[in-house]
């Protein structure tokens, strides 16, 4: 009877998405300001790298184009993660305040349900930024565009999974906002700087707990040499992170305490 699970989830996502777009349409000024701020921030760092690399040549193995590619890819992946899983950064708060109840009462996978139920419209700016950068980099081709997309999707899944895991700590500790915020900040910050400047010991962390390696370092290597065969491996890694996040969330769910706070879905 319910054979077409994927189709059903697809329909659910489309409906959630439509509802979200409507509910944020009144914040379009906010969206424009946010996108403007993001562009400005990225431009400021682009200027920084242009100045530095102009003085010294490649830093930690990254030339200016490499830096721009990484910023573009991370931005697109980060944006995609927040468009699809708009609740991911609120997950800890949702758990803590007991707002998970509503999702648990519905016949959907709880983690997917809570994550997909919201979209972050501001993230469209981040998503587009990567494509703008790609367009500005020399040698644009259909193949490079395809590879960029093929790299951005697993990176987005890894972003969402890592954030979801960090936020799921809320099941186990009283207030995990601080540590979850820190983990997210680490992931984003380390991804945006050249792999070569970090020491060996740290790199272990960057390919596990803080998976910057898989959202930025490896994708850059793949993109530089158009190394398609490595792409499935990255998708595999993304699936592993997603499965881990799902398992960790499930483990926490058994300990869910469902606080009693008045709240509404915004």
């Amino acid at each position: 009877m319910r054979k077409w699970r994927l189709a059903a989830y697809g329909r659910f996502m489309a409906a959630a998405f439509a509802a979200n777009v409507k509910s944020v349409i009144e914040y379009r000024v906010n969206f424009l300001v946010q996108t403007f701020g993001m562009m400005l921030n990225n431009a400021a760092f682009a200027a920084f790298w242009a100045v530095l690399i102009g003085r010294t040549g490649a830093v930690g193995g990254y030339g200016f184009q490499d830096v721009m590619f990484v910023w573009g890819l991370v931005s697109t992946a980060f944006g995609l993660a927040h468009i699809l899983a708009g609740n991911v950064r609120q997950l800890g708060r949702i758990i803590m305040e007991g707002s998970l109840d509503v999702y648990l009462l519905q016949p959907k996978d709880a983690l997917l349900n809570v994550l997909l139920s919201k979209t972050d419209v501001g993230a469209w700016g981040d998503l587009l930024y990567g494509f703008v950068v790609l367009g500005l980099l020399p040698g644009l081709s259909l193949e490079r565009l395809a590879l960029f997309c093929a790299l951005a999707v697993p990176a987005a899944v890894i972003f969402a999974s890592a954030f979801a895991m960090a936020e799921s700590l809320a099941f186990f500790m009283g207030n995990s906002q601080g540590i979850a915020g820190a983990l997210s900040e680490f992931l984003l910050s380390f991804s945006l700087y050249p792999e070569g400047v970090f020491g060996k010991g740290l790199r272990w962390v960057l390919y596990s707990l803080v998976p910057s390696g898989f959202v930025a370092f490896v994708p850059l290597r793949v993109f530089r040499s158009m190394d398609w065969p490595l792409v499935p491996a990255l998708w595999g890694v993304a699936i592993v992170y997603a499965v881990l996040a799902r398992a960790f969330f499930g483990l926490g769910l058994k300990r869910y305490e469902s606080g009693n706070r008045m709240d509404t879905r915004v």
Partner: protein
Amino acid sequence: MAAIVAENLSKRFILRVRPQGRFAALRALVRPERRIVDAVKGVNFSVDEGEVVAFLGPNGAGKSTTIKMLTGILTPSGGGARVLGLDPARERKRLAWSIGSVFGQKSQLWFHLPPADSFRLLGAVYEVEPKLLRERTGALVERFGLAELMDVPVRKLSLGQRIRCEIAASLIHAPRVLFLDEPTIGLDVVARKEIRRLIEELNKRDGVTVFLTSHDMGDIEKVCKRAVIIHHGEVVVDESMKTLKHRALSRKHVGVRYARPTSMDLPGLSPLKRTEQSARYEVDTNRHALRDVVRALAERGELVDITVEDEPLENVIEQIYAARSGAEAAAVTRGGSA
């Protein structure tokens, strides 16, 4: 067939306590202090399909925790539950197809959007075919009188209107069991009456099993056939509303007011309240015939007014607590209802 069964259902919460005093944060890190709270201590009850059952108890008695275990939100720490033959903790998703729930304090409607959008989204969540969804939505809109509300953002609805929408929304997938946690909390009298009427109709017309928690005795007296009372995590009463009412009906409150100061001493009865010209008595009709009491009072002086009322259900429950768990329980209830 039993729609809901709870067997030794228990929930223990382990709370982290923030230690006080010097180096508190450090001590918390080394050896965190914990406090164990048994919110639900092995409750047993069952609800037949088609029944409307009230689940009562003062604040913190374990009502919400129980209802959350029955709907799969919380995992029990002992015992178990079956709802429509499924284990809510293990088969949450399967169960969700056939139950509906309204938690007065947790909204499933989107705050900034009109209910129509939430209905569409819930239709997708419950995989209701678009055509069927339109039919059901239409029927619910008519029945719950939502025609004018469907296109108004939820944030602009009154609480009563919102709860009506919430209940309608919880029926979009035609559930067989409906859980209502404090559905009338914060509503005015008119809105309450309306909600009660809807619940009654839902049960009578569609045979939906209703499991309802409430503080409001009115909800329960009017709507429910049976009451389960929980206190300190344990079931203290499980009987038909009729029996419960019968107990209550054996006690009457008699109020009198005289034209001028009158001596109102009655042998064997002491007034609950009295002034020079008025008094209020609680009369146990098993011991004193009501007729005798009224006649005796009428003979004392020139009556201005006399009233006879059923004892409020709160008091009945309070007395049951007092009988079951001693004076402490009664003190807690009084403190809670004050």
